């Protein structure tokens, strides 16, 4: 499946200021990676579903049709219907919007807070770093899903709160990641040179450091989106996720539990949807890592 050796040591590729050529090499590598390609294709389908849901599915995904409830897949309902007679296909298509929204929102929260804080922490060091790191320790002391659970308990249920809760649980991961990368980049000659020539800190961070820590951030973003979908599905399954009748995959699976014995299709299709979406992010994330950030491991 993997065409390239994950662990090739390519110290040459991240030489000073040579970002463009190393990234183009990365792209070439990525394209050769079949697994990543499969992931990318899945992802593309998924995004098309999310944006094209109204075009792909004409009806209202929340409109019940009680007479046809729990219908197995048939010509009228390609993937069958759920307990209220709603088209499962329609709900999965519209559900892809919700889950994409969650994935992007969650990672957005993580990036928005995690990256700047990580940059500052790593670049300035000293007391700032110490305080930020203790704060990160504090958040990291809770397993991610549990932190999200606790936050939902405080903020309450709903789409927005789901995104915020899972997003916050991801912030420390980004802080750690970015800080770690900054620490290695900070000592590089070109950063030292920039600093010596009196370049402003902000400029150094944005121009010299950020581009060099971008690769691991991108990898983490892809993997993080997968995790976000899984977490949101978990919350939905426990009944503390988004509100009905919003078609969210996890809560679809959660309600479908009741019908799994006799009508397994009700649970199977949302289950497959979650699985494929997460899988595609993971495949792509793996490919991205192999291509752009071969030294990191997880």
């Amino acid at each position, binding site marked *: 499946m993997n065409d390239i050796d994950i662990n090739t040591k390519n110290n040459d590729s991240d030489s000073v200021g040579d970002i463009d050529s190393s990234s183009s090499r990365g792209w070439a590598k990525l394209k050769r990676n079949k697994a990543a390609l499969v992931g990318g294709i899945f992802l593309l389908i998924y995004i098309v579903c999310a944006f094209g849901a109204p075009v792909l599915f004409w009806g209202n995904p929340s409109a019940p049709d009680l007479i046809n409830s729990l219908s197995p897949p048939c010509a009228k309902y390609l993937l069958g219907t759920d307990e209220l007679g709603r088209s499962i296909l329609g709900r999965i298509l519209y559900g892809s919007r919700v889950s994409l929204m969650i994935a992007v929102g969650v990672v957005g929260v993580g990036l928005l807070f995690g990256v700047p804080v990580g940059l500052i922490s790593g670049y300035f060091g000293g007391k700032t770093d110490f305080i930020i790191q203790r704060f990160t320790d*504090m958040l990291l002391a*809770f*397993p991610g899903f*549990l932190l999200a*659970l606790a936050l939902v*308990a405080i903020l309450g249920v709903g789409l927005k709160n789901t995104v915020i809760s899972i997003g916050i649980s991801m912030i420390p991961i980004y802080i750690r990641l970015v800080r770690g990368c900054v620490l290695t980049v900070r000592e590089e000659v070109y950063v030292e040179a920039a600093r010596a020539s009196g370049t402003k800190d902000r400029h150094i961070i944005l121009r010299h450091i950020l581009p060099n820590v971008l690769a691991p951030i991108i990898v983490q973003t892809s993997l993080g989106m997968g995790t976000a979908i899984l977490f949101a599905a978990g919350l939905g399954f426990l009944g503390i996720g988004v509100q009905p009748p919003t078609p969210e995959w996890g809560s679809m699976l959660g309600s479908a539990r009741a019908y799994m014995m006799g009508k397994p299709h009700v649970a199977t299709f949302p*289950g497959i949807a979650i699985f494929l979406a997460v899988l595609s992010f993971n495949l792509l994330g793996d490919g991205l890592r192999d291509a752009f950030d071969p030294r990191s491991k997880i």
Partner: protein
Amino acid sequence: MINFLLKRLLAIIPVLLGITLLLFFMLRMLPGDPAQVLAGQMASPQDVEMIRTQLGLDQPVYIQYASFLNRLVHLDLGLSARTQNPVIQEIWARLPNTILLSLCAITMACVFGIPAGIIAAVRPYSWVDYLVTIASLFGISMPVFWLGIMLMIVFSMTLQWLPAGGIGTWKHLILPTVTLASFVVAFIARMTRSSMLEVLSQDYVTTARSKGLKENLIIIKHALKNALIPIITVVGLQFGLLLGGAVLTETVFAWPGLGRLIVDSILARDYAVIQGSILIFGLLYTLVNLVVDLIYAFVDPRIRYE
């Protein structure tokens, strides 16, 4: 070694303080009166008043925090709004079950994940390697509750081989353990594979090979020992994921553990119990990370001096 141990223990203190601080403010972030929140919606005014005096809500925040810590030290986590029982009792009754399940799952994950990773690394790009890679990707991408329910339908309802839920005999452990271990196995296998691959390309392995040492010996004695550090790190980190997954697994398999308690408490707005159980999970996770660090030092003495 003792020095390292002491240092490492000291380093935990700020983390612990951080955990308590976070939980302390968690309650105060909620809208409304913390005493009312803790007592629950059904509580009588007397109950609320009692909690108010106990929390010292009329005093400055730092004193409230200090008394919160003081109560924690005395294992006083307050009363559950739902059962009127001390929270620590509620937790104590369920903690061993969660620990048992987590330990079984992590053991199983190591027992299957590490060998799978080694085999995949020893024969890269063989069908075994692909199988491990694909299987681990499946494991990582599978929603754990879905897997759990499917396993239950197949092995309990259809085949009737294993009990569907609850605790009791070792048989009750199988399905929850497999479910919970599934994605951790995947992570560990992946990590072991990449770590082993790296080590196997190192000079000393080549040297060992050129000396004509047996391949098995090389793998176990030279490569594995050096590949172990990142593997241990992963196992430690995965423990966190495992505890999160335990919430879902316990729900599916009626496992009376701490995860299920949290979910029940969230649904019942029993904040004292939520606070207490999250705290215990935090402590547990911190403890695991400490143990991981100690194992590090044991496996690789260099780390102590860093």
